[in-house]
């Protein structure tokens, strides 16, 4: 089979579709499925919130200072990921990479605090298996944390690709998807903050 190398110009190739546009739509739909995933976990948490089986509840356990710091870190990182995209749109590779690094550091800080918080809870004897409430709590918050961690791996990988490939429509598409993902995690966190923590200590 003869294979000609794929080339850049896709313009007047009938039947061929802008791959970036397809990917973006696909990514939006993927985010919809992620919304459903989190909604299911939220619903589970809400049902089990008071099923502490005689163990400690949210009011006794949550350390709000830590949560406020986490919130601050994540919200700022969402903002800096926006700045990264702005830099990219201006064509500034340096700005893009630098803002991505800042975002990654903030994200890492968030994960650090969250892990610390979890370890503290376990020390106090509030384990995953202590009660239905805690199972639901660790799963919901942990799933969000896992998403953030995956986002970090993705971000770091993307920085290498940017270095190697430069700003092409493909790498740009990947950065846009990543930043969309990051904002999405931010939005989920706002819900976590209100439903799990604020309503928990109230």
């Amino acid at each position, binding site marked *: *089979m*003869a*294979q*000609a*190398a*794929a*080339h850049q110009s*896709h313009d007047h*190739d*009938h*039947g*061929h*579709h802008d791959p970036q*546009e*397809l*990917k973006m*739509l*696909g990514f939006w*739909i*993927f985010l*919809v*499925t*992620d919304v*459903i*995933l989190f909604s*299911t*976990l939220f619903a*589970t948490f809400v*049902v*089990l919130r008071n*099923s*502490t*089986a005689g163990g400690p509840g949210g009011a006794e356990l949550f350390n709000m200072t830590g949560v406020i710091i986490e919130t601050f870190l994540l919200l700022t990182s969402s903002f800096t990921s926006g700045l990264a995209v702005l830099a990219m749109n201006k064509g500034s590779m340096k700005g893009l990479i630098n803002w991505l690094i800042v975002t990654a550091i903030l994200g890492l800080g968030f994960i650090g605090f969250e892990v610390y918080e979890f370890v503290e809870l376990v020390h106090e004897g509030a384990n*995953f*298996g*202590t*009660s*239905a*409430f805690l*199972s*639901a709590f660790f*799963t919901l918050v942990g799933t969000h944390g896992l998403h953030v961690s995956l986002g970090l791996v*993705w971000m770091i*990988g*993307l920085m*290498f*690709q940017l270095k190697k*490939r430069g700003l092409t429509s*493909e790498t740009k598409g*990947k950065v846009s998807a990543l930043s969309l993902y990051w904002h999405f995690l931010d939005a989920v966190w706002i819900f976590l903050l209100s439903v799990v923590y604020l309503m928990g200590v109230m």
Partner: protein
Amino acid sequence: MLDKIKEFASTFFVTGDPMIYGADVSIALAMIGIVFVLTYFKKWGWLWKNWLTTVDHKKVGIMYILAAILMLFRGGVDALLMRIQLATPDVTLLHPEHYNQIFTTHGTIMILFMAMPLMFGLFNIAVPLQIGARDVAFPFLNALSFWLFFMGAMLFNLSFVIGGSPDAGWLSYPPLSELQFSPGVGQNFYIWGIQISGIGSLATGINFIVTIIKMRAPGMTWMKMPVFTWSVFSSCVIIIFAFPILTVTLALLFLDRFGGGHFFTLDFGGNPMMYINLIWMWGHPEVYIVVLPAFGIYSEVISVFSKKKLFGYKSMVYAMFMIAILSFFTWAHHFFTMGSGADVNAFFAISTMVIAIPTGVKVFNWLFTMYRGKITFKTPMMWAIAFIPNFLIAGLTGVMLSVAPADFQFHNSYFLIAHFHSALIGGVVFGYLAGLYYWWPKMFGFTLPETPGKWAFWFWNIGFYVCFIPQYSLGLMGMTRRLSTYGWDTGWQPLNLVSTVGAFLMGIGFLFQVLQILLGIKNFRKLKDTTGDPWGGHTLEWSIPSPAPEYNFATIPQVEERDDWWAEKDKRAKGIFRKQSPIEAIHMPKNSAIPFIMSVFFFIAGFGFVFGWSFFYIPGLIGVAICMICRSFFSYDGDYYIPADEVKRTEAAIRGSV
């Protein structure tokens, strides 16, 4: 040391039952046979290049269908075993525990590993061709979806010979499925088999939504889109809303079993009822996920074989979307008896009955399409027509079940078993078989011989009624589901025997289908489809040669009408020809080994989680991660161009032989 190994082997491998040793031997023989044949005919390279690494949607579709037929066989053997057991009250072919395992694996396999992949196979074969596209939106992801399904199915099936099968029913209600009551690994196989293939299903849903939104040929507006494609679209919309719920539900169950969680346990505040709500929030829509594409097929087949346009195209489309939305508001009808209270039950009873309205609209549209049509009774059409009376019964008994107070009588009885088999076999399986016969020539380039197909049809159909009609009566006589034995004094024996005979008639029907395929392959030169349009089709897939060339369309069609190909044939007969655009180089995705390898790692990870072996699941997960990273780093040159000259040569060769 030797004792230790022996002890391990006796828990690891399932032992004790001669049937299982038989399975061990036949699996080993089949493996050796496959390896031998591939080596002897030097086919390893062919297998790897053409199938294991392919990203061509048509080949992916064929692999889905093959796997689904294999699973139909396995699920069917399970069904026959159960029916033999039930034919007379005091046979002990299956011990009660074994019976539990078999109804669980039968139900799971039939719905998740037979109906779903058969459906995805047909999506893959037909949708891109119907909308005039060269591919699906994400060919790589598409191949990955297939391999995830395949590995998930294999993992699930492995439980039969290794570790032990799940036995808590196809929906694994806790607390029965919790560690306390199901301490073996069977439930873990269930969770991971479904989980892995479920990721694939979700990805397929996303893939086809994007394909249908973005890749329709120019001129094909939404209201000119073929009905089957519409049905796929609505089915995929349900998938993306329903499957994440399943993923979470099974993950929580696994956390309970593996991590000592208390989501659904009886102690520490767990709530089993929540599982039942969650699983049915997926489970009910799932029924519509599989049935809507069947409705799409009936619409295509009935209009083509009646030589008429589909009656009420628009109402068909709206009805499908009504059903898709409503399907999310009926889940509690599966547990009217479990103490939800009268208000809740009333809400779900009414929402369930409302679904009968759009469904009724569709049935009337099909009838009106046939009315005064020039009907030809080819096999696809026969299956489509056979569906209608059957679905009247299934629908009617469904409405009976949705009457909440009456359901206290029918719940978990054989009446229910008869109802959902009518819907699933008569609605879903008949539909997919019709679709398989309909698109067979497009897939393989030859039609299947009609005579054995008709024999198969009659055996299946007669067997179907003989098997399931008695079960409605048995249900009313008080026979409950999931029974492996009963007393003579119940009076259930004669009807059960009849039902078993019916099941065997269906089994014979299946054998006729196998025979039909074999005869078709043997005589494929005689049966060759030289026109590309053996049925007088209406939609674009019939405008290209059979089997479709790898790039599908040499030039992308410009769509003008709803039944575009039909309209074009009309114009050609009048001597009006559309201007053909010139042939250009065609952009194609390259093959990739990553989907296959990544799914193997998923399998390894899943196997590790089943047994709680970190030396399996950690490497498995790392392998998955590496594959993902590789994909991300090397996705930049995943495509190539077929030069225009080569396209012209290929076209001349295919069309030249016409």
